[in-house]
């Protein structure tokens, strides 16, 4: 009798888990494993089935200059966006956490980029960047500087995308910092004031260390976002010129769905996944020693 009830609980338990598991397997686990398997095969075409290639695809990847180029781009993109957007997020959060007139409006303004659909926003940025009569060139023109093809020249294309990304991400991260700031008891700051700490000392010695769990969370998310980003590039530069603003995921998309080389694309995907895993784990262990959890 008891065994029967136990079995029924067990079945109900699995039935409850089933819907979530179906989605998890269908969209995460199975594609991941299929990608891993496909990465060792050639791309099937027409009546020619996929052929087992072993590590040939990986060899090709290591010899592929575009792969290294987009990887380098991605690294530069990460370095350009992550520290800057986190720093901006903290500054904005500190600012709107203070008592200031129009605080609600400022919070809303900072968060707006997160809410707006990127397609719409990118069009505004496209205008800002338009050579000759875009906002930036008009402003620079006031100082007599020549027009720049921001999105069209290899030197500035990636940096222009970085600016848009920082603008978009900082407000989102600010929300996390704002929540964390509000969780810090006010008496801690008062105790520090009584002990003679100025605002700068209070920030570096008390506030910032207590924000570390948030910084860890935000930075892991920022890194993942860096490698996940494709939409900006589609709209702003389409990866050009000469792959100057192409990132890894964009390259994977191109390989898979423009050049229809799904085998090689699978190989690139595996490389991306491995890198993401390593980064997340590394960050976790690196920060864990430095993060104080309450």
């Amino acid at each position, binding site marked *: 009798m008891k065994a029967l009830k136990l079995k029924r609980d067990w079945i109900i338990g699995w039935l409850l888990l089933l819907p979530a598991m179906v989605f998890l397997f269908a969209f995460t686990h199975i594609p991941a494993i299929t990608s891993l398997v496909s990465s060792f095969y050639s791309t099937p075409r027409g009546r020619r089935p996929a052929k087992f290639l072993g590590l040939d695809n990986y060899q090709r990847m290591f010899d592929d200059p575009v792969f290294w180029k987009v990887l380098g781009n991605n690294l530069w993109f990460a370095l350009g966006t992550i520290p800057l957007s986190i720093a901006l997020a903290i500054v904005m959060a500190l600012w709107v956490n203070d008592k200031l007139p129009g605080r609600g409006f400022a919070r809303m303004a900072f968060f707006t980029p997160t809410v707006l659909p990127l397609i719409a926003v990118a069009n505004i940025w496209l205008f800002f960047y338009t050579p000759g009569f875009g906002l930036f060139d008009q402003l620079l023109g006031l100082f007599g500087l020549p027009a720049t093809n921001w999105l069209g020249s290899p030197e500035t294309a990636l940096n222009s995308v970085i600016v848009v990304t920082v603008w978009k991400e900082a407000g989102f991260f600010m929300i996390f910092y704002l929540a964390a700031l509000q969780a810090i008891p006010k008496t801690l700051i*008062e105790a*520090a*004031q*009584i*002990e003679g*700490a100025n605002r700068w000392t209070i920030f570096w010695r008390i506030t910032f260390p207590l924000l570390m769990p948030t910084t860890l969370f935000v930075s892991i998310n920022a890194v993942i976002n860096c490698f996940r980003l494709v939409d900006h590039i589609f709209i702003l530069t389409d990866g050009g010129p000469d792959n100057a603003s192409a990132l890894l995921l964009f390259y994977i998309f191109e390989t898979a769905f423009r050049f229809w080389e799904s085998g090689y694309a699978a190989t690139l995907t595996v490389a991306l996944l491995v890198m993401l895993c390593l980064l997340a784990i590394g960050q976790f262990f690196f920060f864990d020693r430095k993060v104080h959890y*309450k």
Partner: protein
Amino acid sequence: MTSVSLKDVAKSYGRVEVLRNIDLDVEQGELVVFVGPSGCGKSTLLRMIAGLETITGGELRIDGELMNNVPPAQRGIAMVFQTYALYPHMTVRDNMAFGMKIAKKSKAEITAAVDKAAKILQLEPYLDRLPKALSGGQRQRVAIGRAIVRNPKVFLFDEPLSNLDAALRVATRIEIAQLKDSMPDSTMIYVTHDQVEAMTLASRIVVLSGGNIEQVGPPLELYENPRNVFVAQFIGSPAMNMLDCKVLACGAQTRVSREDGGDIVVPIASQAADEGKPVKLGVRPEDLTITDSDDYLLELNVDMVEALGETTVLYFDTALDDPGFIAKLPGIHAIRKGTCLRLATPPEKLHLFGTDGISFRHR
């Protein structure tokens, strides 16, 4: 020597006045307790002395220097918060050393000061722990240690025992009393809503209510000779009983009649103008005794009995929202609900309060 001096100090938020006409001199070496019900402004007053709240009127002086606009760090004060306010990411040692590190004191000096404070508070085994690995009482000791390390002119305590459980509260209260004894020259101002803390720790109590100082004085003076009805009922537990009476005859002694009949001669002086006026006759529950004689104050039926062992508390005339008339007798008494009892009190233990609430002894 006067350590902290408040002259006509006031505080208002916009048009809301939370403190007014606060005059108080705290001598060096005193432990002054601010006590009062929630919202009376006692914590605000302490925070104004600390510099965490602005002073909107009057003068605050510490050691004779005007402090109204001096930042907290330069007032020579240290504060112990109700929530301890320890920096959670720093060890006990770093918590206590924080202020000195900011002041750029030498390492040897810091270590010496921290070790000395840790020794006084018996915190030596915990110096390398984080606050989260300490009990509530230990955390509060660290907070006190952090104050000692600063070597302040004035210690400010903001309800330091409120977050501790009952047993720890008693233990920590005794520790604070001993700490005060070991530092006879340091001035302390202590805020609490607990009158036991106030009575046991204070050299003087300041009773606050609704933003005003009601009375200042040594604990037993406040108990024996309260200035008004508020202080009389706030100090002492259960609160002092008040009976509505009318003055019949004035002089060195006052003869009053109770509304429900019967005259009493109270050995308190009154003025001719008091004759015929309504007054309140105050009697403390613990001053009442049961009597069989005809010389009694009241005859009442017992509504409820609380037998606590050490004392027996009797409730008479209990109504919703009003505990009625209360008597507190020492020891155990076999009294049952509904019994009719005669209560008596020595006349010198009685108090008389005029219509303005002021005690006749304080006029």
